[in-house]
């Protein structure tokens, strides 16, 4: 049985996904509220995995919570914290709850987060994690043992079109497809011309790509991303545009920019992944303004 995300992509519909970030603590009320508001507008909701190496509720627990409420989680798995035993165990664990959507990432280094003394694992990487999921689906584990019941996933990965150089990204994208990637969500893209060039290079791979959008909160955030976030580049015009409005109008401008970017790039790809970073309340507005509903 296909997940709504897989079904949408197979049917050639422009798939819209968004995401929630589990909180640092057990109070999930706000996160659940956000997810419930999103679900009518999207076919899948990513759950980030200890994003930025800042300790939070586990992605698997959060995905189970969402799944039990029919909120279509996309299980993001990084390789930073778990060895091949734990990763396989969590893949099987996700499967018994009917979680189908999977996004395999390498993960931010522990040195970037709030527990810098932690021991990083990185035993697998995004490519071998995808391969591991594929192997489990075939009825065996990584050691070649037969499984008592095998999982079935819709497997995805990430690519960053604005990376410089971008060639290594495209190389790795091919490897991820070989390892079993069936869809891609991109890191945030803000330059339609550059995205078009990128998509021309990868459309031949035949795997659907969902363009990533991170809602710009202010000019400072855009500048910060340019300086500190790899694979993301916000052009000067957009920074100026964000800076041109008063504080009270920033959210409105952010939605306007996001919607415009989606309209400009939607013909080049198969969907959009909206990362609200706290502004989940305006995601429905972005979707409407981008004429995706």
């Amino acid at each position, binding site marked *: 049985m296909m997940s709504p995300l897989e079904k949408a992509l197979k049917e050639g519909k422009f798939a819209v996904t968004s995401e929630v970030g589990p909180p640092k603590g057990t109070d999930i009320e706000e996160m659940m509220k956000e997810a419930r508001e999103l679900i009518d507008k999207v076919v899948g909701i990513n759950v980030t995995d200890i994003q930025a190496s800042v300790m939070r509720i586990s992605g698997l627990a959060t995905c189970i919570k969402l799944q039990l409420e029919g909120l279509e989680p996309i299980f993001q798995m990084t390789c930073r914290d778990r060895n091949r035993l734990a990763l396989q165990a969590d893949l099987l664990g996700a499967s018994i709850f009917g979680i189908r959507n999977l996004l395999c990432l390498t993960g931010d280094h522990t040195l970037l987060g709030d527990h810098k003394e932690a021991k*990083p694992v990185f035993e697998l*990487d995004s490519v071998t994690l995808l391969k591991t999921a594929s192997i489990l689906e075939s009825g065996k584990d990584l050691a070649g043992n037969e499984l008592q019941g095998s999982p079935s996933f819709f497997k995805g990965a990430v690519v960053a079109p604005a990376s410089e150089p971008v060639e290594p*990204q495209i190389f790795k994208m091919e490897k991820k497809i070989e390892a079993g990637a069936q869809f891609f969500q991109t890191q945030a893209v803000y330059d339609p011309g550059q995205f078009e060039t990128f998509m021309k290079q990868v459309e031949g791979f035949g795997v659907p790509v969902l363009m990533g959008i991170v809602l710009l909160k202010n000019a400072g955030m855009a500048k910060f991303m340019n300086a500190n976030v790899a694979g993301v580049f916000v052009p000067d015009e957009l920074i100026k545009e964000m800076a041109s409005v008063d504080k009270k109008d920033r959210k409105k401008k952010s939605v306007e920019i996001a919607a415009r970017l989606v309209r400009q790039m939607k013909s080049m790809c198969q969907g959009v992944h909206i990362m609200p970073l706290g502004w989940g309340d305006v995601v429905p507005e972005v979707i409407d303004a981008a004429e995706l509903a």
Partner: protein
Amino acid sequence: MIVAEQKPFLEVFEFVKPYNKVLVLGCGTCVTVCSAGGQKEVDTLTSALVMKSEDEGLKQEFLQDTIERQCDREFIEPLVEQANACDAVISMACGAGVQLLAEMIDSSVRVFPALNTKFIGYTREQGVWMENCRGCGDCVLHLTYGICPVSRCSKGLMNGPCGGYSREGKCEVDSEVDCGWILIFNKLKKLGKLDELKKIMEPKDWSLASTGMPGKVERKDLQLIEDDA
């Protein structure tokens, strides 16, 4: 070589403060090269200990010596007697040397490490030593044309790069650290061998590496056989 760094002086002084007769023992191999625990460093440390000890009004006696290396019995043997006559020994060797020394002398003689052993590496330039080997036990340098993905990639990825490299080809962890995988990528591109990177590299077999039980390398052909008398 093994690269190590000195522990803060006061920390080492506190180790030996309760002991009357202390031997400061250096190592003439790796830690001499990285200026952490060789003859020169033994001299400096011993002088500092003597001064601090006098300053604190303690009646300590400090001896010093440096041997070829502390990871082979033959070099420790000759000074076992002298060491056993002391109350404590400060070993300026890497962890391997500190332990063999501790094994070979009386357990009543305390052995203290003067260094923090950091990594296997090389001298990049005078005064700078860089890690480039993690003793993973299953070398892949032939596949990456001489650039180690385990030690030069901060995450030790077998299929890098991750999405964290900067425009300058630096690692997300530190803008001064090269992204190991971009180095590999660029080298293979230059050599026209990029296609070789398309092959998925399997996860490492960590049972071969130093992260498992204490490693052992055996050469039966080199071992001494007892005579059948």
